[in-house]
């Protein structure tokens, strides 16, 4: 990169405000960013930090109540604020393109893909329909969509999520834009599908020379895709630098906090507990006068940090800047914050035993065609021969992508669905055929769940206290009102929320706080088994750490069995004792956390592990990208369920016969046709270069060169 080049995009001291009834709210201020040709810049930050606002400002598409109040945004050297609407319209979609988070929402459901793609070229370049069609097919091919001609003649709903997002990216690339804005492009996708799209995005900047701005909350994805990174906090950039500089020598306490709140493969919960960032992101109206991170920072110094902090160049590290006056003084090696402590637990007797459990859903087809052909009903095999157990005090994680049947399993356990066959034993009692209405009170309270979506888990009409005390009364933990009230406060103490929250309505709580109430509710009745269905996937990174920590902490104290359902392998590795990997209703592999994360692997586990983005420069991963899409559980492939995407498929046997369940020792089960010696000779997917993630000396980099 030479300095003589004109930057594709230059943001200088940009400030953006939204106008609300209560007055102007500054969403972003003093924001600087330069994007050189062919460069990929990542913007990372938690929700509400202003990263999407920056993207909208670059598109000059602020809506009616937003405006750029200061600074300049230069695109190819010209200030976009001085351009007319007509000029902006020409630039949008042809010079600057944007890819949004929800692919389904970016495509018009009532138009064919071909119409939507050719339109871009016909409007911006004025070429004929035929020429546009040819170009569109080429680009669809370039984003590695199979059979572009078929896709051109499809409607969006006929494509899978991953295919849709590839079409959206193709649409953005059609007119060879100078700058591509990607706003969380893979957040809505499954991990293995995400890995494919990420690979595509990396490839684009190399092949087309397109500059990119990649907005994400996932540090691992930024590391995989970007050259430079900009960390945002509360409307400001707090640290900027190239990826290596920031990931290996982070200087801002917030960046440091972000990294210590995500589980990295080098860390386990006993030696390196996660450290959540305390407090909450300030609302734009209550930002502190000085350093915006001040109130949450352990290194806050009165007199120095309470004046506005400028962006400072890091000495001896050109291009690396941080918004911290004390960046040079903090001795991170001595800094040992109190993390979420955890001690290894000795699991007790089995509490939950699942043997050969099956759950089929019957789909009745009442159409005339079905009556004629006689196929009146089909079965969706959501769970097929599930076999595992969970012991007292143990955390068992169930991992898999959407459609793998993990939520169905939770529903059967909770009595919202009845199993079709096999046994589900809770403390020796068969519950698989017992819907919740028929369950005795003691069983109901001993089997509880923490839901996924914090915005739906609490009834918006009732106060938090009323909802907790209802559980207590219902489970007979509290006999009268006073006792219920007292125990409600105790539960609020347990989940570390102030007692005043009992009077609040759910809408007055943040997502993390709601999830804490959900946890309090689940543990209110002395549950023996708590099922957590992706309890943190909708939360911000720093909050995730706190909520996960709280959940496991309570579970350990109470010796509750935790069934943790997740798609996030890094979280699972951090907190689970045992892991069950599911794919299309089958258990592909199960074993202790160490067994599952080290070879031998099931080929699917291997691919899953390789797909997880890791925010650590010292980690080297084996590169496996699965081809194709997840098959539909309505129509599973014959033989091994994974055979359609398996990179290690050995031949016809995979397509015809269900693989055997092999014990690789110690109850480490793998369901695969691969011979034992092949399984045993697999190499680890993730290699960690250094062992102490707090040690950020350059020496760590040396060992990373595997």
């Amino acid at each position, binding site marked *: 990169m030479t300095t003589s080049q004109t930057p594709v995009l230059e943001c200088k001291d940009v400030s953006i405000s939204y106008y609300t*009834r209560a007055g102007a709210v500054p969403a972003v201020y003093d924001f600087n960013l330069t994007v050189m040709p062919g460069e990929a810049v990542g913007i990372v930050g938690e929700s509400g930090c202003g990263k999407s606002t920056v993207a909208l400002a670059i598109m000059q598409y602020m809506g009616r109540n937003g405006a750029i109040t200061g600074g300049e945004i230069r695109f190819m050297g010209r200030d976009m604020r001085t351009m007319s609407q007509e000029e902006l319209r020409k630039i949008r979609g042809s010079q600057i393109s944007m890819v949004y988070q929800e692919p389904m929402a970016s495509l018009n459901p009532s138009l064919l893909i071909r119409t939507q793609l050719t339109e871009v070229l016909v409007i911006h370049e004025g070429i004929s329909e035929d020429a546009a069609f040819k170009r569109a097919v080429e680009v669809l091919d370039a984003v590695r969509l199979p059979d572009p001609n078929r896709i051109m003649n499809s409607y969006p709903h006929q494509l899978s999520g991953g295919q849709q997002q590839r079409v959206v990216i193709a649409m953005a690339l059609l007119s060879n834009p100078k700058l591509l804005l990607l706003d969380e492009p893979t957040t809505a996708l499954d991990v293995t599908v995400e890995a494919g799209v990420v690979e595509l995005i990396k490839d684009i900047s190399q092949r087309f020379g397109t500059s990119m701005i990649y907005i994400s909350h996932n540090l691992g994805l930024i590391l995989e895709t970007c050259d430079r990174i900009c960390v945002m906090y509360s409307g400001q950039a707090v640290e900027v630098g190239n990826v290596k500089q920031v990931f290996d020598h982070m200087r801002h306490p917030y960046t440091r906090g972000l990294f210590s709140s995500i589980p990295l493969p080098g860390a386990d919960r006993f030696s390196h507990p996660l450290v959540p960032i305390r407090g909450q992101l300030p609302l734009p109206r209550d930002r502190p006068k000085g350093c915006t991170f001040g109130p949450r920072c352990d290194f806050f110094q009165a007199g120095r940090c309470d004046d506005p902090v400028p962006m400072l160049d890091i000495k001896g590290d050109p291009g690396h800047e941080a918004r911290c006056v004390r960046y040079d003084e903090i001795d991170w090696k001595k800094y040992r914050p109190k993390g979420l402590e955890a001690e290894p637990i000795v699991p007790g007797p089995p509490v939950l035993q699942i043997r050969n459990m099956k759950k089929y859903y019957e789909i009745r087809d009442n159409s005339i065609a079905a009556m004629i052909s006689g196929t009146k009903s089909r079965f969706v095999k959501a769970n097929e021969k599930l076999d595992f157990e969970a012991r007292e005090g143990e955390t068992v994680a169930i991992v898999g992508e959407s459609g793998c049947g993990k939520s169905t399993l939770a529903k059967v356990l*909770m*009595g*919202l669905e009845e199993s079709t066959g096999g046994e589900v034993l809770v403390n020796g009692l068969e519950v698989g055929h017992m819907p*919740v*209405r028929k*369950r005795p*009170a003691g069983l*109901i*309270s001993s*089997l*509880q*769940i923490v*839901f*996924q*979506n914090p915005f*739906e*888990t*609490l*009834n*918006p*009409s*009732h106060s938090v206290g009323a909802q907790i005390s*209802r*559980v207590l009364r*219902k*489970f007979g933990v509290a006999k009268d009102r*006073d006792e219920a*009230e*007292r125990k409600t*406060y105790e539960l609020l*103490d347990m989940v*570390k*929320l*102030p*007692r*005043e929250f*009992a*009077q609040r309505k759910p809408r007055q709580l943040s997502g993390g706080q709601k999830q804490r109430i959900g946890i309090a*509710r689940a543990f209110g*009745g002395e549950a023996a088994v708590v099922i957590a269905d992706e309890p943190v996937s909708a939360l911000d990174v720093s909050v995730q750490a706190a909520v996960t920590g709280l959940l496991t902490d309570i579970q350990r104290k109470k010796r509750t069995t935790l069934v943790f359902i997740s798609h996030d392998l890094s979280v699972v590795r951090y907190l689970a004792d045992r892991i069950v990997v599911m794919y299309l209703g089958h258990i592909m592999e199960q074993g202790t956390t160490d067994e599952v994360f080290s070879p031998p692997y099931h080929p699917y586990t291997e691919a899953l592990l390789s797909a997880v983005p890791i925010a650590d420069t010292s980690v080297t991963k084996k590169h496996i990208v699965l081809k194709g899409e997840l098959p539909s559980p309505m129509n599973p492939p014959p033989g091994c369920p994974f055979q359609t995407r398996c990179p290690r498929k050995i031949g016809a046997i995979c397509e015809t016969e269900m693989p055997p369940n092999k014990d690789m020792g110690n109850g480490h089960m793998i369901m695969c046709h691969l011979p034992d010696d092949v399984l045993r000779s697999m190499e680890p997917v993730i290699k960690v270069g250094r062992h102490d993630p707090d040690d950020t000396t350059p020496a760590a980099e040396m060992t990373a060169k595997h």
Partner: protein
Amino acid sequence: MTVTSAPATEMPRRRHPLIRFFKSLALLRESYVGMLGAFLVLFWIAMALGADLMPLRDPLAQSAPDLLKPALSASPDGGTYWLGTDDKGRDILSRLIYGSRLVLFWSILATVVAYAVGMLLGVMAGYRGGWWDEIISFFGNVLLSFPQMVLYLVILSNFGPNSDVGRYLGSALGISGTVVSGIIIIFAITFSVAPQVARIVRGLVLDLKTRDYIAAAEVRGEKPLYIMLVELLPNARGPLIVDACLRIGYVIIAIAVLGFLSLGLPPPDPDWGKMIAEVRGFGSIAGNAMLWPAIAISSLVFGLNLLADGLREISLRD
């Protein structure tokens, strides 16, 4: 974040639900349309409540010499007929104000009853699904396929106070003709309004019942009735309150039309619709006597519509 160990009695007091209700109503300030609507509705409520405190003539007293007087004409006792008199010499202003009592009382009561029935059926159909849904929706659709006026006419002419059933009811229960016809009107309006309400509630519930908090209630073993009444219905209240405001307006119009067709409350009660009907033969010489009740009906219905608009506006914010 402060974790206090204060005893429960020191917790901040919960405000009375009524106070919170009025506080949230205060949000209407921000919608001019809603303010105007609230003003019109409150005006008529105040008239109905304060009728006895005002120096009004007896709304039923007939005065033979003063038939069909225009507005602002002098009365024999030295006062003024502010809005004139009707065909029997009764004071229109007084009849309008006393009439607002009848109109508001019966229309609100009818709407409340229709709503209660409709919500119950709707939440059952939506939450229970299956056969419950099939049956409730089927009968709802049957009732909705009748033209509303025909439905009213059928019910009121067969069961009204002048029918055999109505007369029997009146004598058996020892209630006046007004009450009998009020009850029958409520009955008729429930038949036509409840299916519409049920349909709205069913739609809302179909969406609400997929929320996790409903699953949470189910997995803690709550009874279906509890889930329907405590967990589901309160969350449907937003759209329902707006709809109820509009619905009261329609019911007022329906009652007025029934009064006009002499199927409503029996004479001599000053029902607004009937007031129009009584003088309609004299329209060419005394349009005045028809005008005022018409204005009363439309101002109240208009006010309710604006209020509903305002409520919808503030419910969309925040």
